[in-house]
């Protein structure tokens, strides 16, 4: 099976109202394998959202190529195949929901694909089940909380049976419990439904369970590796304007003071274990 997403050395410029060009992405090369859980982190303006939109042909690179499941995003004939295979969930929960009733919104995607009505019904029921929102099927979207709306948006994408879902800062506008609901759903989709996940965020703690973390700064990839590898580069992350979990920060501070600890402590339990061993 070929790579799910293959981004080859792309660049992206955009022009603003005053005809000034800004280089939003530079020298980006990323390969996402099927079933992977990738987290892309960066401060606001690092280009992460722009990068996300290249993955489902909402944007086309100024230089370089992007392939999704083998299809080139520049190939107009296959745009819809690409978007069916690489679903996208956006930041604003409200501005993704189009219908007046939850289940009709979830049906929107399959309807666009021309799926037969009986099959749509089945997919909608399944999708709502996966995100734990079946009891809200005939409620109006505006009555739901932020976290619930995002889960409906996710259900709408699942109903299209994509192989990969790209999450563009899905928790940025949610309160802590909404964030937890969405993160839990994303994890479930990767672990239980085997969907490839590309999760874009500026919250470090959401990267803890990723297979791979990519850190962006000013339009370029600055760091890449497993979470433990990336998190331990505390000074660099701070300079990039990112938060590190308190445990990682503490580990770094203690190591600076000469205490013998492994660099990659992420959780409270790991810290407790390591400190006990120091006894």
């Amino acid at each position, binding site marked *: 099976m070929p790579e799910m997403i293959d981004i080859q050395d792309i660049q992206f410029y955009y022009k603003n109202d005053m005809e000034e060009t800004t280089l939003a992405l530079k020298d980006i090369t990323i390969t996402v394998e099927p079933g992977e859980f990738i987290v892309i982190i960066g401060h606001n303006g690092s280009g992460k959202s722009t990068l996300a939109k290249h993955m*489902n042909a*909402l944007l086309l690179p100024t230089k370089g190529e992007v392939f999704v499941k083998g299809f080139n995003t520049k190939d107009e004939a296959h745009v819809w195949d690409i978007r069916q295979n690489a679903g996208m969930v956006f930041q604003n929960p*409200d*501005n993704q929901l*189009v219908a007046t009733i939850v289940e*009709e919104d979830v049906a929107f995607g399959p309807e666009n*694909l021309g799926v*037969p*009505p009986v099959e749509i019904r089945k997919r909608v029921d399944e999708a709502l089940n996966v995100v734990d929102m079946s009891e809200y099927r005939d409620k109006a979207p*505006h009555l739901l909380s932020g976290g619930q709306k995002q889960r409906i948006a996710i259900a709408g994408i699942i109903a299209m049976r994509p192989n990969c879902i790209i999450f563009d800062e899905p928790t940025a506008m949610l309160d802590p419990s909404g964030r937890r609901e969405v993160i839990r759903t994303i994890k479930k989709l990767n672990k239980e439904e085997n969907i490839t996940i590309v999760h874009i965020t500026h919250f470090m703690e959401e990267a803890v369970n990723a297979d791979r973390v990519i850190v962006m700064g000013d339009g370029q990839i600055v760091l890449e590796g497993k979470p433990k590898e990336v998190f331990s580069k505390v000074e660099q992350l701070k300079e990039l304007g990112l938060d590190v979990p308190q445990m990682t920060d503490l580990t770094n501070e203690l190591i600076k003071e000469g205490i013998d600890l492994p660099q990659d402590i992420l959780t409270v339990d790991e810290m407790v274990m390591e400190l006990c061993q120091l006894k």
Partner: protein
Amino acid sequence: MFKDITIGQYYPTGSYVHELDPRTKILATLALIVGLFIINTFVPYIYIVAFILGVVYVSKVPLGYVLKGLKPLRVLILFTFIINVFMSQGDIIWSIGPLNATREGIYKALFMAIRLILLVVGTSILTLTTSPISLTDGIEQLLNPMKKIGVPAHELAMMMTIALRFIPTLLEETEKIMKAQMARGADFESGNVISRAKGLVPLLVPLFISAFRRADELAMAMEARCYRGGENRTKMKELKMDRGDTIALATTALLLVILVVHRTVL
């Protein structure tokens, strides 16, 4: 507070009328309107009133609730009545200054007033028994055949659906913006018409900008979900007419026939 607003006056009771295909109800309402304009004597009103009362009864919507829809139109009805009383030619029964009330005038006024009342009641039964989204689906299906002559049925229906979906959201946002500006000392209440209009700028500008931003984001989300217009699109909930609809349509047709007969023969 804005969250509790129900759009239109949809009053769900799950009755036979509610369950009818929206197209049936739209067509029936159109037939009723046509009927009301065909008749030119008082007697046929009895059939129409009987029909309406029958429908209200089956719909299980309280009659009082149905008649509430007339309240905002009291003034208009009264106005229509008075105009017709004084503006018609005929035998003068009563005068007040230069205005003459004629017998013909009174008959005409009554006729027009009753027509107006029945028009309002008839159409409000449609909105009371059919949810906005149902209505939209019904209108889309009815306009579908007209796509051949360039009527964008699907696009119109999509616009209506999105509008309905966002009305509560935008109302909520309006409230938020008003509060934020009031916290900065904005006054939406006092002053004359002109100053109040100017005072709306801090409310309308952010609202419009927000609406455009929403539209932009929504369009992107729709494209990401493979939306490409109405071609080759299926619908999860397909409208299907069944026996109940046939009965309803037949009854309405019968009424219309009776009214036409009345006008032409009697």
